[in-house]
């Protein structure tokens, strides 16, 4: 299957979040993905990019860092990969709120863990790998083709 790939580098600051979302939106619109799925993809990417910037880099005291967004399109999938060189951080090792906690009144709820949960629930596939000293967060959405 033919892959069409492009990428863009962003400064690892929270101010980049809106530019990252704009980039993903622009590329996903070109690929013909509907608005609702683009929103969810942006939400997933935004949540993980926030963690990379806040916890991966800022809290580790790493300055002048970058996050690379790599977009790959083919007939079946549209993927976004976020690459960063912060210390390894596997979002799947983080404990997420369970159903019981999500159903609690807000006054009694723990405040954390929502971002990673949203990232997982907003795309068709969310994966993490650590390769060549690089964190890779991979988001994929299936392209629905009504003919198939």
């Amino acid at each position, binding site marked *: 299957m033919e892959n069409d790939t492009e990428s863009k580098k962003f400064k690892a600051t929270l101010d980049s979040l809106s530019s990252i979302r704009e980039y993903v939106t622009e590329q996903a619109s070109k690929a013909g993905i509907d608005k609702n799925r683009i929103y969810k993809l942006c939400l997933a990417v935004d949540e993980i990019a926030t963690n990379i910037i806040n916890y991966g880099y800022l809290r580790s005291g790493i300055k002048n860092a970058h996050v690379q967004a790599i977009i790959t399109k083919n007939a079946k999938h549209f993927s976004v990969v976020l690459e960063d060189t912060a210390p390894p951080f596997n979002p799947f090792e983080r404990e997420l709120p369970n159903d019981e906690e999500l159903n609690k009144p807000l006054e009694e709820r723990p405040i954390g863990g929502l*971002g990673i*949960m949203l990232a997982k629930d907003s795309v068709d596939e969310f994966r993490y790998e650590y390769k060549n000293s690089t964190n890779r967060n991979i988001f994929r959405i299936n392209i629905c083709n009504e003919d198939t």
Partner: protein
Amino acid sequence: MSFSVKSEIKENVAIVTMAGDLDSSTAPQLHEEIKKVVQENPKELVLCVEELNFMASAGMRVIIFAKQKLGSAASLILVKPQEQVHETLRMTGLLHSITIVDKYPE
């Protein structure tokens, strides 16, 4: 894209109106505004979000914070969230504690 927020308190009701994108870079602005209004112990907190195009979990954490500060006696009302914002609130279980209305006052 940007974010703006303003608030007013009238007869024990705090109305916070926001527009734009609410993510981790802009949530601190909402947090400040909420801190300001909850000090007045309003019986109702109304968030007007019709012009809010995007809300990440950072925004939801501010809403949870607001409800925790206000306590269970005060009500939290969201006016006209866009469909996708509404859906995210549902996914994260926030709708249990929020009343959604199309306009305020009804």
